[in-house]
């Protein structure tokens, strides 16, 4: 049997609304993935460091506060500095279409906006991570 997909679910920035992050973490776990949840108020440095320590294939960032344009590029830069460009970075939360397009251009694998189904997120991760 192949090793389960390892995912870091992270909540960057000051926002404390963690309903979505926790629901996603559970859904990924129910889908057979190994999920590490960082808890709240993580800096990009803490997130990338945790991803490195935990040897994950996927990082999921939950951002609802509108701070994505400040936070996500910093995470991408740190992944590059640590030679972790093979880690898939996914963003979920309140991200307007134009920002989502911009984030994808910068290297985000997928942006899931409100109303995205859990099945779609699970399916995307399975498709994106080589077995």
């Amino acid at each position, binding site marked *: 049997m192949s090793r389960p997909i390892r995912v870091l679910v992270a909540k960057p920035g*000051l926002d404390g609304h963690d309903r979505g992050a926790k629901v996603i973490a*559970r859904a990924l776990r129910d889908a057979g993935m190994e999920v590490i949840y960082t808890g709240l108020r993580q800096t990009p440095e803490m997130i990338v460091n945790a991803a490195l320590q935990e040897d994950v294939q996927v990082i999921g960032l939950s951002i609802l506060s*509108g701070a994505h344009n400040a936070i996500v590029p910093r995470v991408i830069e740190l992944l590059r500095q640590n030679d972790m460009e093979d880690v898939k970075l996914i963003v979920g939360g309140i991200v307007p279409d134009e920002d989502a397009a911009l984030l994808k251009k910068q290297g985000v694998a997928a942006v899931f*906006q*409100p*109303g995205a189904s859990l099945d779609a997120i699970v399916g995307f991760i399975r498709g994106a991570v080589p077995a």
Partner: protein
Amino acid sequence: MKAAERQFTTISGVPIEPVYGPDDLRAVDAAREIGEPGEFPYTRGIHRDMYRGKMWTMRQFSGFATPEETNQRYHYLLAQGQTGLSVAFDLPTLMGYDADHAMSEGEVGKCGAPVSSLEDMEILFRGIPLGEVTVSMTINSPAPVLWAMYLAVAEQQGVDWARLSGTLQNDILKEYIAQKEYIFPPRPSMRLVTDTIEFGAQHTPRFNPVSISGYHIREAGSTAVQELAFTLRDGIEYVDWALQRGLAIDDFAPRLSFFFNAHSDFFEEIAKYRAARKIWAHTMRERYGAKSERSLKLRFHAQTAGCSLTWQQPYNNVVRTALQAMAAVLGGAQSLHTNSLDEAYALPGEHAVTLALRTQQVLAYETGVTNAADPLGGSYFLEKLTLETEDSANHYIRRIDDMGGMITAIEAGFPQSEIANASYRYQREIESGERTIVGVNRFQSDDAPIDLLQIDETAGRRQIAKLAALRTRRDNSKVTSSLDALKRAAEGTGNTMPLLMDAVRAYATLGEICDALRGVFGTYTETTHL
């Protein structure tokens, strides 16, 4: 699916019978359990004449970009017939950081108005007479600091504190339970809340120092019963702390106010508000021996459910909000916020917030639902649902009593995991199609894009520049001595409010004051319960 197989439940999963009738209420002593509007146990409302006597306060939660831009929005809303103000602060302010702190990067002015010093508070209320307009402030962990700034602005306007009317959210327990915007550990936080209750009882007889909030508990995914039970149990915790401080119940209980969610299940919500009043009245009288009628009456603000708004087909949100608002009114709310149709995307634009305010005005002045008090009272279904809601909430309250109170329950992760379970169940119901969300999992169609409010990216830089100028302009020796005095008070057991007043008058910043308190109290990190 055949009707016989299908489960009919409220949105929270409470089973519903096909029909209700006299048999459902036969064993109920109506005079004792339901009563009359304006009479104990206030199931039917706290006033006999209800909205004939006083219309609810229309209070749209608002704040964005900078204090200057937010002040303009307040003037606009008041000009449109809004009857009270409600301040949204940005995330750095909610977390006790100045605009120029490293953690504030990218967050200044995004989710509310940034207030780093008394100067920002002065700008926020420029031209707004605080003796006449009631103001609600959604601020929790640093609430005593922001309240001190507000009181200082009132002084500058020459308004006697005794005339000030409004509400400080200041409900730290629900932060640990649901919204997670805490700074200090629970016990020192409770001490600060108690300081404000005591200070308010002495100096601001018309101001609500705490708004005990279920709204955020519900938004985090709880059921209606969990929202009700955890909120009322939080209220009990605040009362216990104030009594231990030596206050008399009737000296502070009349100024405790509540804040509930108005979600989509129409009758479940109305039952929740009615049960809330009844449980609180009994609790105040029987558990605490309150004598003043004002102590027994649960007054509440309601806000329509942000979590029910959808990104898909956003105009549907206008309809959801109108129906939710009607439930709040039929449930006897004292003030109301209606969400704007664009809030699944962003902070509301002016057009959207105006439409949300108009929704309340249509409800108040066109629909006729305000003509009679508790117009649904006596409905077999609603009365039965009210009784069941009361029983289920009391069951939770007793469980938390048995655990040793809300702080021990929070430390054990009890309310947090109850809510996480409920929210996961709800999401699964949407995924499986058991629960329909129009435009999301049924009746989908392509949406026309809507115009959104853009927060000017220069807002943060402007705030930082203003703060830098303030730090050089003010008397820094006065700042230092006021912060030293505050630290000594925090280390002791006295009330911190007078020291906070001195610090804000010296233009010590929010971040400096919170850092002084962090040094004494430490900070809190939760154990996550997935």
